[in-house]
């Protein structure tokens, strides 16, 4: 029984190796120091460096890639988080293209794919994690409408007092009439 998963795992591993082998030459050609073959093999995209890789709304995010080649250009797609498209142009390192976009304020927290289509037909993808700032400071959750006299207790007190008054009156009358009778 315990042996069953092994052939399955081997099959999967083989498939991954096969995909990796296909993607590997481009990965090395890009000089990708990470050598993340899993990301590289995804739909044959090159890696896109995203900085910062985790950002809150309003932050400007810079992406760069080697995919577009020397003096290349590309168009970035940040529609997944509602930031539209942006241009990538050669940086000071001419083999690298660079572009920027801003994380919109309405972007929800989560992980988004940013993709780039180069003029040379190649594509690159990278991940951006959108995180929101934690709140700060105290919370205004009350105005004091519950603060005040205890009306229930006052009413109960008044009722007890009234009962005592009625009882007292009755007792006094009885005494008075008792005195007459006697």
């Amino acid at each position, binding site marked *: 029984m315990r042996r069953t998963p092994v052939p399955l795992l081997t099959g999967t591993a083989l498939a991954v190796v096969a995909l990796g082998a296909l993607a590997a030459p481009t990965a090395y050609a890009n000089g990708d120091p990470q050598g993340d073959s899993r990301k590289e093999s995804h739909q044959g995209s090159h890696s896109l460096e995203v900085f910062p890789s985790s950002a809150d709304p309003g932050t400007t995010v810079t992406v760069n890639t080697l995919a577009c080649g020397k003096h290349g250009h590309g168009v970035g797609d940040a529609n997944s988080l509602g930031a539209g498209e942006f241009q990538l142009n050669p940086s000071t390192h001419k083999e690298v293209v660079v572009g920027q976009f801003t994380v919109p304020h309405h972007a929800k927290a989560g992980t988004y794919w940013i993709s780039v289509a180069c003029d040379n037909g190649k594509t690159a993808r990278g991940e951006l994690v959108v995180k929101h700032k934690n709140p700060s400071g*105290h919370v205004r959750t*009350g105005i004091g409408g519950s603060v005040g006299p205890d009306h229930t207790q006052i009413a109960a007190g008044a009722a007890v007092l009234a009962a005592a008054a009625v009882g007292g009156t009755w007792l006094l009358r009885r005494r008075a009439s008792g005195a007459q009778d006697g």
Partner: protein
Amino acid sequence: MSNSSKGWGIAVAACVGLWMIQNGSGEITPPVPSAAQAFAAGPSVHTDAAADPLPPSPPVRLRIPEIDVDTPMTGLGLDGSGALEVPPAEDRNLAGWYENGTKPGAKGTAIVAGHVDNAQGPAVFYALGALKKGHRIEVDRQDGRTAVFTIDAIEVYEKDRFPDAKVYGEADRAEIRVITCGGGFSRKSGGYQGNVVAFGHLIGVR
């Protein structure tokens, strides 16, 4: 019963009645947690182990059986100053959660806030300060699961000494904070003087 003892009974009743009227005329404020419920008061009385965090799913309802809280939940954002927004005050039975933050039951610190009162009187978290360590907080989620938290502490902070990192900071297990107003009330200096915060961690799932 003799007339004299009846007289005494009536006199005592009159005194009790007067005392109740006098006592009730003082200002009553929401319950304030005792120092024994704070983190600083030594090791917590319970030893419930943390449960594994759930995948994220938005909350639908929150219950705190000990103080008869059973409330729907609404999403909250941040205002211009970065402070947590609050649910609409008109609705006395409505709690809010920070929807750009951690979802209750998922890994991290989920933030819940609700009013202690509104203009009409007590609101959803009026009795939050009466909770004790070990009491339960239950959150029904959109995925049909109920995240069950145990309370680790209930603390009170002054407005301008609110410990952001302690209350809102990240956690590597599933935690929750339930926040409301409290910590003294002054009509002269801006109402409630601070916040009551209940700290909890996930101990189970139903």
